[in-house]
């Protein structure tokens, strides 16, 4: 996020009017671990620091570290919850939110975080994640069933066309629910959800995907046989990075890959117990346990009932 000087000035003004130097430093330490204001300014420990001096240094450092959104979120939490039992009022928060909104960010009240406005841009890190940041994500993993056979029988061009359609469908169901596609390499894809009730959003996206493919195979599919996909959702902590291959080595990614490859039938959507535990009953009731998973996953499929 490019920080305009007006926003930077406003942030400094908020700090000066609301918090003393020590409290400003405490807030900065929540965003940049082991942040040392004295070391940064060269002020000796025995000389009191003015609020203006602290705010100037901290905001400049926060801007340099590209952590302005994180810092404002922390101030918003301070304003709402106080600190160590003491209430704090951060003046000018409303104006800060307004300016950040003008930069193309929306406030997500579910997670108390800013996310990029999808009407303006859609980037894999929602315009705000920084590499190394560990957060609770929900992941939707999909894989095309018998991909190599599809290529062999129908040719690479036809298969590539079908995968292009699949990617368009996936983008639609994922981005509509504030998710982001992190990888579409080969015959698989990985999408991540962070905002709103992320586990529910990822399950809804997975269900929508199975529906879209049902219709696609009946109406639009030109390759002569159904495009079949396995999908799975898992939720857990993940350290964000720009190298998806590296992220895939983390446990949460490994679990969603395992759920997709081992426990999901073709055309099905599997959810792990971690996801199931967070779902509303009306959605959870659509899933059935699957013996093959040893109780570790529940599965949703589109099927026909009695007339």
């Amino acid at each position, binding site marked *: 996020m490019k920080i305009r000087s007006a926003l930077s000035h406003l942030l400094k003004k908020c700090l000066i009017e609301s918090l003393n130097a020590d409290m400003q430093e405490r807030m900065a330490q929540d965003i940049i671990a082991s942040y040392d204001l004295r070391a940064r300014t060269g002020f000796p420990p025995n000389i009191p620091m003015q609020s203006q001096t602290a705010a100037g240094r901290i905001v400049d450092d926060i801007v340099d570290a590209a952590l302005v959104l994180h810092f404002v979120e922390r101030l918003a939490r301070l304003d709402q919850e106080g600190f160590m039992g003491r209430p704090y009022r951060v003046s000018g928060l409303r104006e800060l939110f307004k300016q950040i909104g003008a930069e193309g960010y929306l406030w997500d009240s579910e997670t108390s975080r800013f996310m990029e406005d999808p009407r303006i841009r859609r980037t894999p890190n929602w315009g705000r994640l920084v590499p190394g940041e560990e957060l609770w994500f929900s992941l939707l993993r999909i894989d095309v069933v018998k991909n190599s056979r599809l290529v062999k029988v129908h040719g690479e061009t036809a298969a590539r066309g079908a995968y292009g359609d699949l990617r368009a469908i996936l983008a*639609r169901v994922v981005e509509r629910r504030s998710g982001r596609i992190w990888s579409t390499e080969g015959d698989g894809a990985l999408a991540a959800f962070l905002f709103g009730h992320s586990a529910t959003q990822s399950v809804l996206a997975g269900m929508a995907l199975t529906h879209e493919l049902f219709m696609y195979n009946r109406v639009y599919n030109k390759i002569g046989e159904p495009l079949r996909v396995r999908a799975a959702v898992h939720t857990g902590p993940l350290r964000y990075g720009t190298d998806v291959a590296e992220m895939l080595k983390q446990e949460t990614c490994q679990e969603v890959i395992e759920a997709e490859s081992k426990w999901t039938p073709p055309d099905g959507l599997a959810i792990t117990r971690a996801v199931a535990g967070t779902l509303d009953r009306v959605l959870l009731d659509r899933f059935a346990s699957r013996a093959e998973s040893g109780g570790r996953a529940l599965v949703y499929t589109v099927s026909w009932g009695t*007339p």
Partner: protein
Amino acid sequence: MKVLVCAADHEDKKLAAFASRFFASCGSAELVPEAAFVRTAKKKAQAALVYFDYGLGEKRVLELAAKLDGVEDSAWGVVDRGGEAQDPAAFFRAGASDYVGPALFKAGFSPERLEAVFAFAGLEAAVCEPEEDAFTGWSEIEEGSEVAVRFCYAAVGNQKWLLERIGEKRLGKLRDDFAAFLESWSKEYGGVVWIRDNSGCLVLFPPNDAGMNPTLAALRLLLDRALIGYEVFKLEVPLTFRFAFHRGHTMWRKPGATGSIVSEDVNFAFHLGTKAAGDGYILASADAKRDIPDCIADLFAPAGEFEGRSLVASKRFKD
């Protein structure tokens, strides 16, 4: 001669409606996803005017347009509904024959304009002969005249059960919300919510498809019922729908002014929806059977007779 609209997504409803609304009466119009277009460009674009959605990206539009080089009797244009192109004239320098900006996209354009575009492109000009009975919009129909239409009775399903679970007040609100939902849903396919009764709505669709086929769209709603219940209506209980389709004639009156209509087909459509249709599937009269697209025809089976007319019913999705 035909018109193709190439977009990133086959589910781009606004573009589909655009294609149907502005081109359907002037010959064949089709929304083609980018991936399919790339595969079949040489064949599909023969004797065609191809509109590329600017949403594909300017560079991609020019790449796709280049695929038309050497294709017999083809021309291309750009649909820029958001007015994002910085220099629309650049398309003409690259060989385009038309540019549809936001105002034109919204307002639509006449067969005469399309004819002028064909002429400018050097394509056969005599392409815009609307069919005599082509549907030109509900507002164009003269009050009191008889029209051929497709009827669709649509209602929230399981209403007795819902009454017990969510109470009368919320069920009433759900019916209102569903009617509002149907307004926008049917509009996408050229339809209009015509008459509302205590439990559902009678929707009219034009005799020919304008965008997605309404029966297919209804099946889509049944498929998505859990998502719609949760995401659209914010329900904590399961939701389903019921649909009944019939094809026939009626005297046209605007929605809200239908009290004086006496029509056998309107009565039948209402009876079909309120007395014969069931929850979670589509019921269609023999007259509406021909409107069921081939791609879902195998999901329908004979379902006996009602008021002397034979019926077909779709399978139900499992809950």
